[in-house]
């Protein structure tokens, strides 16, 4: 195999692929990037067996072939090189050479057939999603995904696609986000899938213009962005019945300026206990007081924010980190929070919902000690 390409093209592709390389693995081949050069195209592929990323680079091809090279070494040398042409050759004994104006670097490659094959995605259904819509959905929901590997169903976002639109739901057991876009056209496809956090995090970092083609299979989801392809396994678990935990009778409503409330929570939480992150919201008719106290450090803080509270005075405790996340993800300037009691879930939403969008967030409180 022999081809030459520009340093920048190769570097950008390798940086993308590095997101799918495991830091530690019992399979050394997973630390490699598979390079396949044919007359039609040259592709680079990396996988950690959960997510597979493939990128295409423009090359001047001299001899077609396939090989697997250590991704980190290749990325490191590419990062250190000035803008130049890079020629990559691999002989039939898997001896690779990177030839540039600066010098020549030899390394051992691995046989291409050792690299894991791309899972079979035949029979997948194609659904096109506008790139900005997909990023909005991921941005609105992925923060609430659980990191607890003991609850695999919660380590991804549930996508429920129907003729009525697309609904994305994520939860870690303490908070829940439900985000619906009614202006999504599924072209007749209906179904549920739980997409892992890693895939969503990768998609969020990509600059996407135009539509993203989603190929939804039995066990895998493939996203095609231009010439690049990202494939992930779908979490084969039952997502909990989220509808049953969304309260229907929260009768106390707080309306406040989102940024004022968020700022106050951020400042007060600095003085909260470092292990509990506990803050309390004390709500009266015209204000919301945010308080915290850390007896271990003898620190305490309070701040009052102007608000409209419709209901009897209420004090409710929250983990400040969760509260900041939820308030931060409410769109618009005005936040509406609906409460029932100090030990039940509160509903967070925006006063001015965007057209064709429904966003709902649930947060469970901390039981305050008397």
């Amino acid at each position, binding site marked *: 195999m022999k081809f030459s390409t520009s340093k920048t093209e190769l570097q950008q592709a390798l940086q993308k692929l590095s997101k799918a390389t495991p830091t530690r693995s019992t399979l050394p081949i997973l630390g490699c990037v598979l390079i396949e050069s044919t007359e039609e195209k040259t592709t680079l592929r990396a996988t950690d067996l959960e997510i597979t990323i493939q990128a295409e680079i423009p090359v001047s091809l001299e001899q077609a072939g396939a090989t697997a090279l250590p991704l980190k070494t290749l990325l490191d040398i590419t990062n250190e090189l000035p803008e130049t042409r890079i020629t990559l050759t691999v002989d039939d004994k898997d001896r690779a050479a990177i030839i540039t104006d600066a010098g020549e670097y030899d390394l051992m490659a691995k046989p291409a057939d050792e690299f894991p094959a791309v899972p079979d995605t035949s029979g997948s259904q194609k659904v096109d999603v506008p790139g900005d819509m997909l990023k909005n959905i991921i941005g609105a929901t992925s923060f609430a995904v659980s990191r607890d590997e003991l609850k695999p169903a919660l380590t991804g976002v549930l996508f429920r696609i129907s003729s009525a639109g697309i609904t994305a739901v994520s*939860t870690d*057991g*303490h*908070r*829940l986000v439900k985000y619906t876009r009614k202006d999504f056209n599924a072209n007749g496809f209906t179904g549920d899938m739980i997409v892992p956090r890693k895939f969503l995090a990768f998609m969020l970092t990509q600059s996407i213009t135009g539509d993203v083609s989603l190929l939804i299979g039995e066990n895998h989801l493939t996203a095609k962005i231009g010439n690049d392809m990202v494939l992930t396994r779908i979490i084969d678990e039952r997502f*909990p019945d989220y509808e049953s*935990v969304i309260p229907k009778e929260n009768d106390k409503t707080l309306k406040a300026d989102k940024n004022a409330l968020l700022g106050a929570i951020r400042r007060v939480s600095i003085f909260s*206990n470092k*292990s*509990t992150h*506990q803050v*309390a919201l004390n709500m009266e008719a015209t204000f919301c007081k945010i*308080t*915290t*106290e850390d*007896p*271990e450090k*003898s*620190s*305490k803080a*309070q701040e009052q924010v102007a608000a409209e509270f419709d209901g009897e005075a209420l*004090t409710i*405790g929250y*983990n400040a980190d969760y509260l900041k996340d939820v308030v931060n993800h409410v769109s618009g300037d005005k936040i509406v929070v609906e409460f029932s009691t100090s*030990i*039940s*879930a509160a509903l967070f939403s925006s006063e001015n919902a965007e057209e064709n969008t429904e966003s709902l967030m*649930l947060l*469970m*409180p*901390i*039981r*305050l*000690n008397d």
Partner: protein
Amino acid sequence: MGLNAWSSEPFNPLEFTVSFVFNNDQDIFHIRLKELELQAERIVDPGLKTRPVAIISSPHPSGTIVSLSPEAEEEGLFHGMKVSIVRKMSHGVQLLPYNQSLYAKVNRYVYQSISMFTPIVEPEGVDGFYLDMSGMRAIRGHVQNTGLSIIHRIQEQTSLSGVVGISVNKLVSRIVTSVVPETIHEVQGGNEAKFLSPLKPLVLPTVKEKPVHRLLRFLWVEQVSHIQSMVGQPDEFRTLFGMFSVQLAREAKGQDSSIVKPPQLRDHILEQTVLPEDTNDEMVLHAIVKDLAEQVAFKLRKRHQLADKVRLEIHYTDGHQRHRVGKIKGIDDSSVIAVCRRLFDKANERRNRVRTILIDACEFRPYVDQANLFMTEASRNMAVSKAVEKVRLKYGVRSLQTADVFQALGRV
């Protein structure tokens, strides 16, 4: 956590430190039995008295010297030296393994001897004791005479020699015994900062924190007096030392508000069962552990606290003792039982019959009762624990027991 008690004034820890009024009438003694391990070995075997001896933490090559005789020091050995190097360097030095039970016995004996001077005695490690002698001047006369009486008493009762440091707080008294070679030395109230000023910064506990130590080395701070002069510029001091600034400022001035706390006042939860009949029947022992763990869990729930340290001790009929240490991450019965059971299984490595099992939980931190959206195993266990607790609160702790505990307690 109560969240309603507010004062209108904003809280400033540095100002708080400056305005704190320290009681100069206190007399806090620190007794240090220097090289206690060596002294104890020489009492047991008088033949060691003139020989070069070193007590090592472990016979393994990576073990280190814990205590050594002046004769061994003359051969070039020092505290902390690795056993592998000692073996290469010196063949004449007798290396003795660390005899935990002997030193613990000596410690207990000394504790009993000095408890007759004051009921407020706090052991510090194996070789140190704090005594709160405040208000004793009227009864016992000058504090230095009292100090000498204590040392003589220890000498008479145990043949061990020690030194006494006297000041108005624990920090300065402890530093006195570590840097002053005389048998007795008193730092008068108000002279703490003056006493500390020529000493090396490492005598202050906060300086042992890595970021502080690194910064002081970078700034070429070689005496406590330099830190004392830096405290005069609080804003810069706070910027430099951040979260350590308040504590470091207090220590540099020789201020310490901690009290002498006897073991019985230490904040811990201690549950113990002395078996009426010694046994090595694992079923019975597991049931006893379960019973003790439930009692610990009950107390933790009442305090709304988790324990970062839980120690399970097994005392055998032949006097040997085994223990293991763990951490309690949940306060429902199941979580605490699981931790204690694991510790017991790890600690119980002997076949001898067991006489006593003890669970000691300490290093508490607040527990947060975070509500869950979905019923999880942990929340289910917590609900069960609370339901059982209601019955026990009404009818007594033993009113509701699982069959294995009931059977075990019936059998023993």
